[in-house]
């Protein structure tokens, strides 16, 4: 049986003009082809990030679509279909309807999803908050272990890498298996949401999880790969059933003749739909780091932050680093935490080699494959007007 894993998410179609642009974009050199011939993607090393897709000047690269399966589930009265949307979707979806990039259409998006027939509209940002709780606690344990505090011997080694980006995870598994113990064991927000929806939410709503279908709207093509990985069955079912990209959601809204720009404001459903600002910035490079720092600082110091923005980790430089002094109450001293933010996998190799050689001074490293973070992901609206 050919699975999605073997088939690959990203494929070259017949419009390919062999211009070689994508081979320079690809972070893993997975695309190759001779002059004048249709290019090929090596699915073994392709990390499904879709950067080639959004940068192709001829629209010659496609991603696998799950739109038909989502439509089928929505039309089936037996199924209870819930939806989650990633933070980066809400500032880019408007572009498909003529709004400027960065326009926040969060409330209209909730209403549109209800009109499309989803039974409950939740938010991936809720799961992003959950990720911070788990990943942040894991980081604190690793730091305690490195400091020799008793009772934390089970914690993994430092530095800890983030685990939210499925393209980065595949890259590490393919190329740097020795770095895997350094990656946080916390699942990505998408998968956490699926696991919680089919257990906790199903229990609260009194619904059979076998009838529940979890759909996620993502700015990302690698999330389609992630949701099909065989190990994500913690709820007893496939945790996340289908993934739509931002572009595919816009296409669904247009097909259903929904007047998106004049929709009323909506809000997410309760139980697993409430979100915070820390989760919103997950979609930007440095956002996971900043969200984790906000929580780790307050938990470790047992004080409230006066200024919750950590501007030092913001920006669009490919590799950024900062040192944050956190007064740890239980240890009674100030702990300097060295953090690093990488955006664009082309720049991660040096950081990894330093860690493997034991000369890395960092405690926590955020890695996102797409330059700028998820807001520039492979599932986002394509901006051909900029060529």
């Amino acid at each position: 049986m050919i699975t999605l894993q073997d088939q690959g998410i990203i494929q070259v179609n017949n419009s390919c003009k062999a211009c070689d642009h994508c081979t320079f974009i690809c972070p893993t050199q997975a695309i190759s082809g001779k002059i004048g011939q249709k290019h090929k993607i090596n699915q073994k090393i392709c990390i499904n990030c879709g950067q080639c897709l959004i940068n192709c000047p001829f629209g010659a690269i496609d991603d696998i679509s799950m739109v038909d399966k989502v439509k089928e589930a929505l039309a089936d009265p037996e199924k209870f279909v819930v939806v989650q949307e990633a933070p980066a979707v809400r500032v880019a979806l408007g572009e498909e309807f003529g709004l400027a990039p960065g326009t926040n259409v969060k409330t209209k998006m909730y209403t549109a999803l209800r009109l499309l027939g989803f039974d409950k509209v939740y938010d991936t940002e809720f799961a992003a908050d959950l990720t911070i709780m788990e990943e942040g606690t894991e980081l604190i344990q690793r730091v305690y272990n490195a400091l020799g505090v008793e009772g934390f011997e089970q914690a993994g080694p430092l530095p800890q890498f983030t685990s939210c980006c499925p393209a980065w995870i595949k890259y590490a598994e393919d190329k740097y298996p020795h770095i895997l113990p350094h990656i946080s064991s916390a699942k990505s927000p998408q998968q956490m949401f699926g696991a919680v929806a089919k257990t906790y939410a199903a229990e609260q709503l009194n619904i059979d999880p076998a009838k529940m279908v979890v759909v996620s709207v993502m700015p990302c093509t690698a999330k389609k790969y992630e949701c099909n990985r065989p190990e994500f069955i913690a709820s007893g079912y496939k945790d996340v059933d289908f993934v739509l990209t931002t572009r595919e959601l816009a296409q669904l809204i247009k097909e259903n003749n929904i007047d998106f720009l004049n929709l009323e404001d909506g809000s997410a459903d309760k139980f697993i739909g409430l979100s915070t600002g820390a989760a919103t910035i997950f979609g930007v490079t440095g956002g996971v780091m900043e969200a984790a720092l906000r929580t780790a600082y307050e938990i470790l110091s047992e004080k409230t932050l006066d200024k919750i923005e950590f501007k030092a980790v913001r920006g669009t430089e490919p590799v950024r680093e900062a040192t944050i002094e956190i007064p740890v109450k239980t240890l009674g001293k100030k702990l300097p935490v060295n953090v690093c933010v990488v955006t664009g996998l082309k720049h991660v190799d040096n950081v990894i080699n330093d860690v493997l050689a034991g000369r890395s001074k960092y405690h926590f490293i955020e890695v996102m494959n797409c330059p700028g973070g998820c807001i520039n992901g492979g599932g986002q609206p394509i901006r051909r007007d900029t060529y």
Partner: protein
Amino acid sequence: MSVFIEKEGITRRQFFKGAGLITVTAIVAGVFAKIGIDMFKASNAYIEQRISGLYTLDEKMTLRKSHENPEILKLYKDFLSPGDVKPLSEKAHHLLHTKYGNDIPQLIAELKNHQHNAA
């Protein structure tokens, strides 16, 4: 026999001709370079705009820290670590954590075994 000897240096006329040519070339090149630079900048402007869109949204939120999300606290108290807010509890570990690379087959076996015991 008279030999035409060219004067040393350049005449005033030749100077204006050369200087004019260089100036025009520089202006034309500059204009094209400017167009190129603008296009290059514009091709990435949308990234900055989307980034600032998310940061503005964060500033507008009333809750801005993950551990203050009441639904998260409720999830821990009711479900993941009954009666307490304790990340990395046994249930949290089962539902919210994973393994990578060669450890995956073992994890799948564990999860299937867990379902078997639950059923």
